[in-house]
């Protein structure tokens, strides 16, 4: 037997061992994250419906707009986003460092603490104890608990990275290690300045605005890009198009990312460089977006078949296209002419949803569709579920983003007309609000397919097969794309 073959088999064995060691924590993060996601989307639907039909579900205090909207965004960020990121980071880092995970018990325990924190925070918001600071609405007691469990979840990935033997550090690892360091920095700094230090309240508002963008650009973005930089070469089997471009994109993000965010407070009594640097940095995010976008798309080029067949690749590419869109929108929305229209309108919401759902979550879905069959040793059950999930997500997010941003700009223009009644501004965005509500219901449906599919996989009810679940029907197997020969039980009984 040629040495290459044996090396390859040993590789496969090591991969299988790593996956096996991580199966419980990774599945736990994905499944609980997807559950929170479904709840968050339901709350997003309710809050969006309340924006155009205030009488919808009125009469009970815990469903009032201020609470539902806050719970929707906080669950999206901490319930789904962070947990999906944890699952991705610990799996990718173990694979890329070629190390089995030896702290499964601690990670699982910390993961339960994280979920308990999110639950307490969610109930706190719904019961009216929210703090009122965007993306920091969980009652104040929750954030130290989250930070502590974060450290116990992710420190092992850093240890694996440090202990990995030889070789150079792969592109995906740059992003993952950076995200591991940036999250505690952002999270601790922002919460200390907002809740602990007795600073000026306007400054606290500015730190709060910075926190949102820092979390997007310095945590969700690197995790999503790390996932994409792993999935695309892995699935296509091609090397990343350009190392230089990858390096450029990474450092551009690292240099530009921390400055964004404070433009939310343009016009507030702050030294002017804060909002203006924030606006400029958000515009400059287009530079790393271009670098990553070109790099990934050039890597995929010529493999359009793989994109239409592989769920992982398709979702990852969708995420990267969203990242490019995010960069272009950042440029358009932060020029002096438009920024004033975004300050008190829906526009910022559309931008955040594009970042968290269109970009990060799409990449995360791609990673989950890749990882789960490996750790459960079962294949995804249904091609249609994945396909529906993809298209409902794409059209849903597209509609939410277009409606929020267009509606927000019209709303902003109406607000500029001081002489006319405030009602005019609400009327102008009315149709767009209805569009957003319909789109959220699309996304919710897609996410329910995803959640059910994932829970079935968690229960180890997936297909036992040699063939992955692909989205494109092979001409030779019109009836069953996987073919009877793919069934493992049959194969084994034939061998015996």
């Amino acid at each position, binding site marked *: 037997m040629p040495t290459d073959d044996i090396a390859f088999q040993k590789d496969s*064995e090591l991969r299988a061992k790593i996956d096996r060691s991580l199966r419980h924590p990774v599945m736990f993060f994905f499944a609980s994250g997807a559950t929170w996601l479904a709840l968050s989307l339901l709350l997003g639907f309710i809050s969006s419906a309340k924006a155009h039909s205030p009488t919808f579900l009125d009469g009970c205090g815990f469903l009032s707009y201020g609470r539902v909207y806050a719970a929707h965004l906080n669950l999206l960020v901490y319930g789904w986003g962070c947990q999906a990121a944890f699952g991705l980071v610990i799996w990718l880092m173990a694979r890329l460092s070629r190390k089995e995970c030896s702290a499964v018990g601690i990670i699982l325990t910390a993961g339960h603490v994280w979920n308990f924190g999110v639950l307490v925070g969610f109930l706190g918001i719904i019961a009216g104890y929210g703090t009122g600071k965007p993306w920091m609405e969980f009652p104040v007691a929750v954030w130290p608990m989250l930070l502590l469990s974060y450290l116990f979840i992710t420190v092992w990935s850093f240890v694996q990275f440090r202990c990995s033997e030889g070789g150079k550090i*792969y592109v995906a690892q740059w992003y993952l290690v950076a995200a591991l360091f940036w999250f505690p920095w952002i999270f601790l700094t922002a919460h200390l300045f907002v809740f602990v230090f007795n600073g000026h309240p306007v400054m606290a508002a500015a730190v709060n605005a910075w926190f949102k963008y820092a979390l997007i650009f310095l945590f969700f973005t690197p995790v999503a890009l790390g996932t994409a930089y792993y999935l695309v070469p892995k*699935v296509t089997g091609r090397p990343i198009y350009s190392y230089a471009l990858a390096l450029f994109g990474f450092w551009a993000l690292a240099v530009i990312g921390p400055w964004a965010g404070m433009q939310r407070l343009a016009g507030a009594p702050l030294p002017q460089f804060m909002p203006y640097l924030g606006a400029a940095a958000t515009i400059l995010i287009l530079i790393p977006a*271009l670098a990553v976008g070109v790099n990934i798309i050039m890597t995929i080029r010529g493999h359009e078949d793989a994109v239409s067949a592989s769920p992982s690749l398709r979702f990852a590419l969708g995420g990267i296209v969203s990242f490019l869109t995010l960069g272009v929108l950042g440029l358009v929305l932060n020029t002096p002419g438009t920024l*004033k229209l975004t300050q008190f309108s829906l526009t910022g919401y559309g931008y955040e949803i594009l970042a968290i759902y269109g970009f990060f979550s799409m990449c995360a879905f791609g990673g989950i569709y890749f990882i789960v069959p490996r750790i459960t040793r079962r294949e995804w059950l249904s091609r249609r579920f994945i396909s529906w999930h993809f298209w409902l997500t794409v059209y849903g997010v597209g509609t939410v983003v277009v409606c929020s941003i267009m509606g927000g700009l019209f709303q902003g223009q109406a*607000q500029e007309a001081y002489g006319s009644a405030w009602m005019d501004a609400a009327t102008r965005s009315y149709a767009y609000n209805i569009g957003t509500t319909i789109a959220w219901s699309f996304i919710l449906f897609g996410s329910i397919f995803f959640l059910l599919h994932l829970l079935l996989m968690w229960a180890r009810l997936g297909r036992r097969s040699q063939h992955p679940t692909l989205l494109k029907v092979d001409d030779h197997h019109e009836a069953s794309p996987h073919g009877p020969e793919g069934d493992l039980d049959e194969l084994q009984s034939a061998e015996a």
Partner: protein
Amino acid sequence: MADSNQPADSKRPDLEESTNVAETHASLIEGGVAQAREKRIKETGMEPVSLWVILASAIVLLVGGSVIGAGGKLLAYSPHPQGYIRADFPTGGNDGPTSGPIYDALFKRGQKLFAKCSGCHGSTGEGNAGFPPLAGSEWVQGNTERFAMIVLNGLKDPITVKGNTYNGSMPSQAPLTATELAALMTFVRNNFGNAMGDIVTPEQAAAALEIQKSRPAGQQITADELNATHDQMLEGDPIDPTTVVDFETLEPVEDPPGVK
């Protein structure tokens, strides 16, 4: 790297051949089907950064720089250049209503002026030990000239209000403009449970100022003098309290616009 073409365990390369291939194959079918069909991550490509990417980045950099340039003095707190914050209302004023019923206009002005009176008469006009109440007072709700003379001249010697006798000394509240006096009297006559429902017009208040000039300057008035010479309504045509006037000038508005 994870999937380089080196043997998985580079420290023991000579053991490669001894691997039990059948066993490995079996364990792969058991546990690593998906892992076995994975492709390796190849060495990263070495394409140079394309000129188009550099050019596009330069344009983005220019746009970003122009935004910082638009910021003006970056360490200053204000004023923000136009564009990032909303323009002022075109007419320069605030956007509240500029006209409304004359009763509202006078009542609001009187409310502000009353701050000075509330020191002795109380913020709800209930009076105090030694200071007579305004709420329900027959002197307030009675004839307007008598009330105006108290305000303008001050008061000395005993006075009976609501059955109680007070013997204090109230200083003159002059100088007041006609509008201020009208506003103050309208407020007091329609607040603290007093509900005369009428207004003291600026014209009537001007008449009161004329009467005050005929009295010896600086001399407080007494209850006897009030009842003897001033127990009458002030001269001047009454105005319907709902007449719509300009809040600045208190002149009637010919074609009242709706509330903006």
